[in-house]
């Protein structure tokens, strides 16, 4: 962590290693960290594999259709705006205070320990929610894949059995933990192939859907209209907000390309270029798929209609067969590989934040431990995995539609911690807003507008989700499950925070991580 005096600074380091260490002062030197660092293509590939478009869309398309109907393309376009605005602020903070705690550290610096702690909690909760959802989707597609390969469709239904489902999901989680703990990396080449395959399959899937529609074989052929791209055509603000909070989820993870090491091989322009190419690829893919699937299946509630609650939590799972026939197996493979590689990159996020929280004394010190062999935040990784597993198990037993509800709750959590991060950026840079036009845009306007949008989305979703019919329609005691979930997660965070405050008052007195403001 850079925000503390370095305890090891008195180490008898040689001039050789002193050269490495000296590079820490201002940014990273070419020699220090990034000898042979990730290049442009590498950065794009990592970005796409983090977003995992195949996984994201299969999980989010159905719920989004249920909120906004045919206006999904519009929502996808609009949803990118707050994400971009916040990511710009995120990048400023990352430049100024690079720290593995990201939102936690930044919010603590800007707003003090209490807000910072909750931002960290929100980030960890969001990533744990998505971990369980990822693993859940992977289980569905694993069984589908086996069914397709063996030619026995009954096998796909095994995923519906909660006990088999939970058992396999926990195995997935175990595998992902193992891979993350040991920091096992696929070779770059394999990763290129996997991402390339994913994109190719998604394009094939969309094109096939369009061709089937043109040939009159569509389930519910719906003529494509320009109004699909008009966000104002969404019937209510509630639906609009709910759709937006889902579309924030589909772009989540994109920011990594923007904040990846500035020393990415080539020039300073590489990260920006990588981020742009990544997001253009993703947006085009999303639009293509959403338009083609709506054209093919419509938004009705028929067997394959995107409005059918029975298929909404995992639309590719149900539509791959009717559209691609025997080639449907490719879709299963693409979603499986995309969830698998996304599982690994997603694991890193809560683990690193928990590590920072442990490091600054906001959580037990054990969380700060780094595996001496694999250089990963080992303890934090394992705790995240256990919590995600328990969470999935409980949700699978409680909810009628676990995947759907976790995705909706996830959108809410992302709005929560991203919103705080955006405001942290605005507040942290308050003394330098007007030093330059650049500052006005990147440290004031962009994060402020982004933060306000996310804040509005958060509260709208929170209030709407109290309705027991919200989302998948699961409810606990007459209140929507998504609301209960969000409240349990947030209030649980408050309880844990108070407990940590009793046990570790130093952090909450600002002794380990003090408030600060950018003054230059």
């Amino acid at each position: 962590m850079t925000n503390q005096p370095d305890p090891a600074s008195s180490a008898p380091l040689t001039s050789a290693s002193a050269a490495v260490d000296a590079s820490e002062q201002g940014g990273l030197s070419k020699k220090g960290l990034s000898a042979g660092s990730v290049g442009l293509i590498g950065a794009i590939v990592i970005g796409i594999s983090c977003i995992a478009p195949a996984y994201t869309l299969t999980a989010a398309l159905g719920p989004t259709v249920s909120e906004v109907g045919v206006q999904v393309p519009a929502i996808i376009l609009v949803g990118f705006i707050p994400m971009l605005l916040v990511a710009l602020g995120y990048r400023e903070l990352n430049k100024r205070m690079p720290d593995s705690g990201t939102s936690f550290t930044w919010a603590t610096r800007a707003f003090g320990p209490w807000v910072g702690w909750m931002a960290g909690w929100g980030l960890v909760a969001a990533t744990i929610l998505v971990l369980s959802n990822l693993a859940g989707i992977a289980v569905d597609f694993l069984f589908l894949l086996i069914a397709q390969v063996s030619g026995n469709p009954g096998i796909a239904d095994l995923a519906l059995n909660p006990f088999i489902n939970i058992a396999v999901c926990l195995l997935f989680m175990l595998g992902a933990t193992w891979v993350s703990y040991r920091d096992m990396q696929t070779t770059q080449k394999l990763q290129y192939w996997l991402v390339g395959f994913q994109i190719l399959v998604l394009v094939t899937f969309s094109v096939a859907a369009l061709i089937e529609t043109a040939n009159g074989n569509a389930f519910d052929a719906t003529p494509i209209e320009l109004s699909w791209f008009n966000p104002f055509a969404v019937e209510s603000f509630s639906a609009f907000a709910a759709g937006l909070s889902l579309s924030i989820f589909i772009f989540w993870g994109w920011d990594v390309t923007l904040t990846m090491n500035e020393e990415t091989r080539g020039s300073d322009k590489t990260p920006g270029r990588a981020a742009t190419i990544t997001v253009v690829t993703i947006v085009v893919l999303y639009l293509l798929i959403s338009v083609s699937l709506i054209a093919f299946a419509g938004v009705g509630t028929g067997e394959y209609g995107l409005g059918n609650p029975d298929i909404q939590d995992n639309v590719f799972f149900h539509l791959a067969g009717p559209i691609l026939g025997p080639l449907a197996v490719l879709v299963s493979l693409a979603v499986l590989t995309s969830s698998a590689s996304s599982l690994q990159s997603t694991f890193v996020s809560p683990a690193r934040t928990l590590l920072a929280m442990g490091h600054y004394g906001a959580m037990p010190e054990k969380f700060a431990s780094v595996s001496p062999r694999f250089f990963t935040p080992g303890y934090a990784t394992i705790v995240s995995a256990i919590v995600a597993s328990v969470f999935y198990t409980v949700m699978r037993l409680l909810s009628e539609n676990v995947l759907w509800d976790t995705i909706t709750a996830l959108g809410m959590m992302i709005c929560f911690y991203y919103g705080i991060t955006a405001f942290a950026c605005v507040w942290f840079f308050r003394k330098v807003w007007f030093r330059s036009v650049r500052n006005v845009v990147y440290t004031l306007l962009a994060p402020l507008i982004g933060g306000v949008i996310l804040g509005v989305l958060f509260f709208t979703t929170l209030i709407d989700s109290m309705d027991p019919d919200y989302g998948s329609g699961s409810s606990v005691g007459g209140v929507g499950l998504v609301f209960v979930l969000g409240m349990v997660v947030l209030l649980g965070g408050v309880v844990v925070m108070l407990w940590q405050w009793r046990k570790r008052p130093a952090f909450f007195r600002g002794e380990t991580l003090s408030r600060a403001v950018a003054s230059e």
Partner: protein
Amino acid sequence: MNAGAPGASAASAASGASGADAALPRIVVGYTANESGADALALATRLATASEAQLDVVMVLPSEARSSTVPSDVGYERHLKARSREWLTEASSKLDAEVAQSLHVRYAESFAEGLIAAAHEFGASLIVVGAARGGILGRSRIGSVANELLHSSDVPVALAPSGSRELAASVGVSRITAALGTRPGAGVLLDAAVRLTKAMRAPLRLLSLVPIDLPAGMDEGLAELTSEAHADEVLVAAKRALPAGVETTAEVATGDTIEAAVRSLDWHEGEIVLVASSRLATPSHLFLGSTASKMLRELPVPMIVVPRSNGPRANGSRTTGKAAS
């Protein structure tokens, strides 16, 4: 931020004076903050004490370039580096102050690659790593790092068996055993052995292992006789090749297998074993042969694997392109 430079140059100067012509002027230790790293550090300290060499304790961190799925994070990388420096400082504070030492953090795509690059950078003549990583039930197992090193290093590699950390540096090196193959071509090994025995003032034991692993039906007695005779010849030839003034003993170890032959020998507490890398190795690179692998599994003492021919060390940079300096 760090005031390391003055102390460090003093340390290098101290070693530079005594280590210019010694067999082990500098020793690179591949350190990790676990038992395996402690084993490596303890063995290296013992070797450095015995030969008055300088220790370069190196921690190799994964470079960003190996990451293909996980986005890099500057904050986390800094944290790792700070943590590694703490680890190095802790390890260093436990070391005997008499031993000249310097601490380094390096980045490479793999631990082995980083160590080889560091060895080239410092002109080190030996890399020490822990051999056993999580060996089961006390048995030595070559970890993936040691394995990679043994298959790619052009610098001799010492493998510290699990438990090396319990042996005090003051034990020194009591004897050096050079394990000769049954085939000729042990020149490099003998050279290294002679250099080591001089540097460490230890006696030399020449060893020939004779496994009798024959198809059933063969006359075992006869086989044993011929193999032993052959082994004796190798030893005699080797002895003749040694320069005068080296205190040398010779021994032939027999057994049904290599493992049994190794078990039948006596080992001193502070002994080290020297083997040459396999004939399969590319010239001047290491490759652990099957015999040496089998030996390693049974050896209670550290093993040093020597490349078959000492190629020019100066152009070592050809393999180090990716490491940070």
